[in-house]
């Protein structure tokens, strides 16, 4: 069905319809401001009280030539009146700014879904740029007309017209088209435009000191909104009621932001200073961007010459007594391997953030994946275990960032914080924590020697945790040397003694296993025993949880559980696994957690493994699980 402006002007009465949730996607050229548009829609919906979940999808190119398919940028948000965990499998409504975006995204829209199109960009020239055959106009394709509610709007023209007397140049005016589109969507879903008006005023008028830019954007936004109202393109208007979230104060937060806040909080809870060393890499760079703005929290950021320098500086900062962090993505982890191995030998605390992206090699840098788990477990010479934690959602990043430091400090061992592009870039509502309720992190730097009769003993361990003391430069009497050669336990001297070597190898592993005593047990959603356990980790939390709900709704005995602690595993993991006839492990890799589980627990776990540079569709997970159950 193609809804034309003409058709709309027949003035059918506009109905209201309530929906539980809606997934909407904004797509256009990289220069079209789709990320900002989607972000605004998300904030507004969050402020309205919906539960939200987002998925931005950038191209690898910064700003590829306009109109090409590889220059398409997208932003999807699901907003809901119930608890949701994913940005939605299928798009209910899509805003399309040009043919390239149409071409690359249309297949994801549900049958009968709304597609609002900037028809002014659907020109011959643009069809050619994105590779449509000559003479073909997708808007005229009957197949599409049958499948979707396509609503062409001459957005470019209308925006220009509405801003004609602003006195601004065409280039600036054309940049407001996204706000015009957003206005339409706000009207369609009955949202207030106020938060965006405030945002535009704050950003352009206050921070960038360009009030005229704020003005035309606001005007375009309003024009779009009024256009929606007056043009009556839509026979219905949709309402999505606020969600019944847990009581409290909320904000929208992305994984990157939550991680930064978590680290700052961890440092505050320990009375420590943060030092972040990193080298830019997508999608981890956001972390240094956030932290470098927190200098008034004493946070030091060091943009190193490469990833190797960054891990080395991090180790040194830890030796000097800071809460030290380095962050990167897969290729950077590879470069840091040697350094991480040394950090483990030094037995110093620090956090190494890996925001996974689709590999291997350079791979698809702007896409997500979960395939660095085994690299993080084993990617170092010899036996070099480190702690590994993995946040499961954007807001969970806050807690796991704190946990990373808590564990690292307790065991005096580096901790890898294994996030991914999906979590880091995604956003959801975050129930603001009560800072006072967060346990302090206890740090004790020794100030007097543990060996009055001789040199200080840097490897004399705490009998409970097996951690060595963290004596820092500046402390008189505790001068000592650390090094990567095998060291004698207790004294820390270089040692080639065979038995000591074996003992040290075992001790370094045991320290980590002992952390299982203080990490929370794995919790299960659904039946405590039964047919199937869907076990996951990391960014697939949303889809697995939703799939579990759906399967239980269908009457199946399916539980879900999500591992946020990977090395060590929660103590009760073996027990949990043994309570189900079948264990299924969905991962965006070829079966990496599955390998660890099979080895450790001799459980014949089955994998659901997708590697498409993006998260699971809930429905695919449901179908695959059913297929396994019916084998």
């Amino acid at each position, binding site marked *: 069905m193609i809804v034309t402006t003409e058709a709309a002007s027949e003035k059918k009465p506009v109905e209201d319809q309530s929906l539980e949730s809606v997934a909407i996607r904004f797509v256009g050229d990289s220069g079209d401001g789709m990320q900002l548009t989607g972000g605004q829609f998300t904030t507004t919906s969050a402020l309205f009280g919906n539960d939200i979940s987002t998925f931005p999808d950038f191209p690898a190119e910064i700003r590829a030539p306009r109109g090409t398919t590889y220059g398409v940028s997208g932003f999807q948000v699901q907003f809901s009146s119930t608890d949701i965990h994913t940005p939605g499998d299928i798009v209910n409504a899509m805003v399309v700014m040009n043919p390239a975006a149409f071409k690359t995204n249309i297949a994801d829209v549900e049958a009968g879904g709304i597609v609002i199109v900037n028809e002014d960009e659907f020109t011959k020239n643009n069809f050619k740029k994105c590779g449509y055959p000559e003479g073909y106009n997708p808007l005229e394709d009957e197949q599409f007309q049958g499948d979707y509610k396509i609503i062409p709007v001459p957005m470019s023209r209308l925006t220009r017209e509405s801003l004609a007397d602003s006195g601004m140049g065409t280039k600036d005016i054309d940049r407001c088209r996204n706000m015009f589109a957003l206005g339409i969507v706000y009207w369609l879903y009955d949202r207030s435009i106020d938060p965006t008006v405030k945002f535009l005023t704050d950003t352009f008028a206050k921070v960038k000191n360009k009030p005229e830019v704020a003005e035309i954007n606001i005007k375009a936004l309003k024009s779009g909104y009024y256009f929606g109202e007056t043009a009556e393109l839509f026979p219905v208007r949709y309402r999505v009621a606020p969600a019944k979230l847990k009581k409290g104060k909320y904000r929208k937060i992305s994984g990157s932001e939550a991680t930064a806040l978590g680290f700052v909080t961890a440092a505050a809870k320990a009375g420590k200073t943060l030092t972040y060393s990193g080298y830019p890499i997508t999608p981890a760079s956001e972390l240094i961007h956030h932290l470098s703005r927190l200098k008034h929290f004493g946070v030091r950021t060091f943009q190193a010459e*490469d990833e190797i320098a960054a891990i080395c500086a991090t180790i040194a900062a830890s030796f000097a007594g800071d809460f030290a962090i380095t962050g990167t993505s897969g290729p950077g982890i590879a470069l840091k391997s040697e350094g991480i191995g040394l950090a483990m030998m030094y037995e110093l605390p620090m956090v190494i953030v890996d925001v996974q992206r689709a590999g291997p090699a350079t791979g698809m840098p702007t896409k997500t994946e979960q395939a660095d788990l085994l690299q993080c477990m084993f990617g170092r010479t010899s036996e070099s275990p480190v702690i590994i934690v993995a946040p499961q959602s954007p807001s969970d990043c806050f807690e796991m960032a704190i946990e990373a430091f808590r564990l690292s400090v307790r065991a005096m061992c580096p901790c890898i914080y294994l996030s991914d592009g999906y979590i880091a870039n995604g956003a959801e509502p975050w129930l603001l924590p009560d800072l006072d309720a967060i346990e302090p992190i206890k740090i004790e730097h020794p100030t007097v020697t543990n060996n009055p009769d001789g040199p200080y003993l840097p490897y004399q361990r705490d009998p409970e945790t097996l951690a060595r003391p963290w004596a820092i430069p500046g402390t008189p009497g505790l001068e000592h040397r650390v090094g990567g050669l095998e060291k004698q336990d207790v004294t820390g001297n270089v040692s080639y003694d065979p038995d000591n070597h074996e003992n040290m190898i075992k001790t370094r592993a045991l320290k980590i296993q002992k952390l299982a005593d203080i990490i929370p047990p794995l919790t299960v959603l659904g039946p405590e025993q039964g047919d199937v356990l869907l076990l996951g980790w990391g960014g697939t939390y949303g889809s697995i949880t939703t799939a579990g709900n759906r399967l239980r709704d269908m009457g199946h005995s399916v539980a879900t559980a999500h591992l946020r602690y990977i090395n060590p595993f929660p103590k009760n993991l073996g027990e949990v696994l043994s309570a189900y006839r079948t264990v299924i492990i969905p991962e965006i890799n070829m079966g990496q957690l599955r390998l660890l589980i099979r080895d450790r627990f001799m459980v014949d776990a089955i994998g659901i493994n997708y590697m498409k540079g993006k998260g699971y569709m809930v429905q695919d997970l449901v179908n695959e699980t059913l297929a396994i159950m019916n084998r």
Partner: protein
Amino acid sequence: MPDTALPTLKAKDFTSDQDVRWCPGCGDYAVLTAVRKVLPNLGRRKEDIVFVSGIGCAARFPYYIDTYGMHTIHGRAPAFATGLKVSNPDLDVWIVTGDGDLLSIGGNHTMHIMRRNVDINIILLNNKIYGLTKGQYSPTSELGKKTKSTPMGSIDYPINPLSLAVGSHCTFIARSIDIDVKHLNVVMLEAAKHRGTSFLEVYQDCNIFNHKAWFYATQKETKAETTFMLEHGKPMIFGADANKGLRFKGGSLEVVEFGEGTGVTVDDLAHHDETDRNLAFTLSQLAYPDFPEPMGVIYRNEKLESYERMLHNQIDEAIEKKGVGDLHALLHEGDTWIVDDEE
């Protein structure tokens, strides 16, 4: 600035309990002695000093100094040193390591620490060979060097460590020799006093795999002809009879005899200016056998702020502007909304 509250330390206070494990006759011993002698003169507390190294024979250095120390990984000492200073600018940080470590695998970190002007001291123990891995050629080995990995001679033009340091805008550059203990002590003290990155190349003899590599510059018979001592503001003179010198010729230097009967006077000779980076480059290029090699302080620039000071200044400035960060406010920043009971 000697601090009167400081205990008076001696070389032996900087001697750790570890046996020194270098080969008998290794030039590293002399440098170790020099360092132990210089450290008490810096007015620093033992506990505020950190020695950092990579991997190699030279890189065993930190084990033998009774301060804090980090024996790290091959080539990365400058990155560790930078991390230490970012974290704690008050530490006195020293890098002591070998030519392979600093210039082969570690060249990039070396260049970056220099251009950032991190306030640390680098001592390069240049023996023109890989000692610890048993005698392959290093990036400072001369062309044609026959070693285990180059039985027909090496085919890499060597790196000139001083030229590279000049090109990396290092703010203090000097050179000395392992067995010239007095000179070594003096130059090392100057290096230590410099605020910013200091780089001291020491000609060091590897008794086992490259013995006599520096003989031309260390032997009594030859050294007056093959080396000369730089002094700021003073003419560049050398030779057993102190009758030769260096004179400008365009932007370069040439060897001349001066004094009676030569038509050249001392005043015609080039005078050393430690603050002239172009001159530093020209000096760094002087090489045996065509030229005598300069010893002492080649370049010094005390005008640039160090990296870590600027970093900490920004933090102070941010706090001044925004006040000490309020965690609660940070968390509650931006658009927030409240979900209350009823819903």
